[in-house]
């Protein structure tokens, strides 16, 4: 095709729509990291001794570690001593209701189109809103309490359910796992804690909205979800972040534990600030997410729609330990502007008859670089393990890149592993075809991209799928006249 790429150039140049900063007095710690900082954070949260000890062990381990260099991403070295490791909105006492929440904060949520009030009434979703490092509002507690479900900030759980936290924290992602997991373990700010009792189906979808807002403050979320035997939960995580000048580090850890016959569905729509056209000011998103299918017939399913961040480094994984357990990974990752993403999954088959599915859809536009990195590991005893992987890449324009790094390690010959991969270019011819039928270019691109991502969107809860679709449209929106 000899046609020019003007249309596409226009399309991929768009600006982040959620850029602003809310002025809220925050209590910020000076930049730098040492044992005292770890002690300060722990003391601030009035943590029990075991928590402090664990943090300190993690910190000492982290000091001996080096940043991973293997991801296919490039960025200037991070000065970990130039980052402030604690920031919390100032407050007198924990708010008991929305009335007590800083109105400016609520306004911020309004701008994002996620008013808590409306969320509560319309969506039937319980929202545990994390604003910077401290949870400020938790809703629907009563309904959940009735079901025996625990859904609270992890900072609260260390007090209310210390035995559970002590037992499970670091049990799926130990602090020795990797550089960022160690860092997170030492300084984690807050995050969500979920515990579903035996035989319980969580009565609603659980949701958390994250938002980075204090200047130059690393965010270190830590989420822990435990599903006891025969229980089920669907957890939704979504976020947008305001426009910034300096790069912001985000190193979260999410741990999921599914016991016998339990099922955890974890869905993410991620829209951190991607930086400007040169990638300046975007979020560095270095996340460790892992689920453990501990008991037989348990199931863990990750679904993610990633449109933001300057750099994404993220591999939501499943360890299939229980026999007949199931792991799933459905992903849409968009890189536009100068974004870089190295993302994928690990499926570790340990138990017999374990099954995993990987569906990854990468979209590269602008000068974005999108890499899929996946590992399917079949252990010696994983008789009849199955995996199906499908990795598709779509290119929009001619300055972006797509890369695929699939790894397969087989130690049991009864395993069946399938891998399919495609790379396609969103064609001027597809767009022209739609134009010729009267459909405008932007609508055409949205239609084509959404069609391409359909398999993943189908995995998302309904209202979240709509949101994801919108986000995708916004991410690829351009100045088409």
């Amino acid at each position, binding site marked *: 095709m000899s046609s020019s790429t003007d249309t596409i150039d226009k399309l991929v140049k768009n600006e982040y729509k959620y850029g602003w900063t809310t002025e809220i007095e925050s209590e910020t710690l000076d930049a730098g990291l040492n044992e005292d900082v770890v002690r300060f954070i722990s003391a601030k949260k009035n943590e029990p001794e075991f928590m402090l000890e664990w943090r300190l062990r993690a910190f000492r381990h982290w000091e001996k570690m080096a940043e991973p260099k293997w991801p296919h991403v490039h960025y200037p070295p991070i000065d970990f001593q130039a980052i402030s490791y604690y920031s919390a909105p100032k407050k007198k006492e924990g708010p008991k209701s929305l009335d007590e929440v800083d109105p400016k904060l609520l306004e911020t949520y309004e701008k994002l189109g996620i008013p808590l009030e409306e969320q509560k009434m319309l969506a039937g979703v319980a929202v545990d809103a994390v604003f910077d490092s401290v949870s400020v509002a938790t809703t629907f507690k009563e309904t959940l309490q009735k079901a025996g479900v625990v859904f609270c900030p992890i900072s609260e759980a260390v007090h209310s359910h210390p035995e559970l936290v002590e037992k499970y924290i670091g049990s799926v992602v130990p602090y020795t796992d990797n550089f960022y997991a160690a860092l997170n373990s030492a300084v984690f700010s807050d995050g969500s804690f979920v515990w579903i009792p035996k035989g319980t189906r969580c009565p609603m979808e659980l949701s958390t909205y994250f938002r980075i807002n204090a200047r130059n403050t690393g965010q270190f979320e830590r989420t822990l979800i435990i599903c006891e035997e025969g229980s089920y939960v669907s957890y939704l995580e979504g976020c947008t972040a305001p426009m910034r000048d300096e790069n912001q580090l985000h190193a979260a850890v999410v741990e999921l534990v599914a016991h016998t016959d339990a099922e955890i569905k974890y869905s993410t729509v991620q829209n951190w600030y991607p930086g400007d056209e040169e990638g300046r000011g975007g979020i560095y998103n270095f996340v460790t997410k892992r689920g453990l299918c501990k008991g037989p017939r348990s199931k863990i399913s990750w679904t993610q729609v990633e449109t933001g961040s300057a750099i994404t480094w993220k591999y939501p994984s499943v360890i299939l330990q229980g026999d007949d357990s199931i792991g799933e990974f459905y992903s849409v990752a968009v890189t536009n502007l100068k974004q870089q993403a190295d993302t994928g999954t690990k499926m570790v088959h340990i138990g017999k008859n374990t099954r995993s599915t990987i569906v990854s859809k990468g979209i590269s536009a602008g000068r974005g670089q999108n890499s899929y990195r996946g590992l399917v590991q079949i252990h010696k005893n994983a008789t009849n393990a199955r995996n199906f992987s499908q990795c598709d890449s779509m290119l929009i324009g001619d300055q972006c890149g797509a890369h695929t790094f699939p790894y397969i390690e087989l130690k049991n010959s009864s395993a069946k592993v399938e891998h399919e991969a495609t790379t396609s270019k969103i064609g*001027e011819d597809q767009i022209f075809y739609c134009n010729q039928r*009267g*459909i405008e270019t932007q609508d055409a691109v949205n239609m084509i991209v959404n069609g391409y991502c359909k398999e993943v969107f189908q995995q998302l809860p309904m209202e979240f799928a709509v949101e994801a679709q919108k986000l995708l449209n916004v991410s690829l929106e351009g100045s088409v006249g």
Partner: protein
Amino acid sequence: MLEIKNLVAGVEDNQILNGIDLKINPGEVHAIMGPNGSGKSTLAQVLAGRDGYEVHEGEVLFDGKDLLDLAPEERAGEGLFLAFQYPVEIPGVNTTYFLKSAVNAVRKYRGLPELDSTEFLKLVREKMKILELPQSFLKRPVNEGFSGGEKKRNEIFQMAMLEPKLAVLDETDSGLDIDALKAVAEGVNRLRSPDRSQLVITHYQRLLDYIVPDFVHVLYKGKIIHTGGKELALELEERGYDWIIKEHNEPVTA
């Protein structure tokens, strides 16, 4: 309806159309024939407004409006339809959704209210009957996994849905066996009406056995060098293009 005046156009530095003049009145069916590389498909692309094709001279009036000044989707809105030689696949987008977007985009352009799902499905059923298409068509992604014949029938189905004033059929017969060809031609014929025109671009005469044109034009090196009635197509089939080209190169006066 359509008036092309001295159209000179091409791709980048390569000039392909060298001054085309053509007038199509409402209700007329015109066929454009010509040897490979004569510029037949270029003409279709230029009319539809494909990016990358540059018009150097001339003008095209569509119902009195300057067609070349409009974006491709506006041309569609005005009632120009191109049945593609190679319809593209759009994976994951189901045909119904695609069609509804197209129909409503065109309606919006024409200042008509958008159709709701019920009205839209009623229209679909009506048009499907004309073309004898199976219901399963609608649920499949646009052209994905379609056979050559299905793709072309889908083009004609879209044409029926969008009710264009002028339909340009670009080598609609290519890659079709005789049964598929008949089915497609029949669909096209049913859409014929006194206020709709068709411009049929083809390399072979056989399509014109089924879609009978009012006029046949011979395109050669980017110019229409001969025009005749429907019998010209038969003559071309029999004698080829050489005699016309010769006549064109050696004017009678010489």
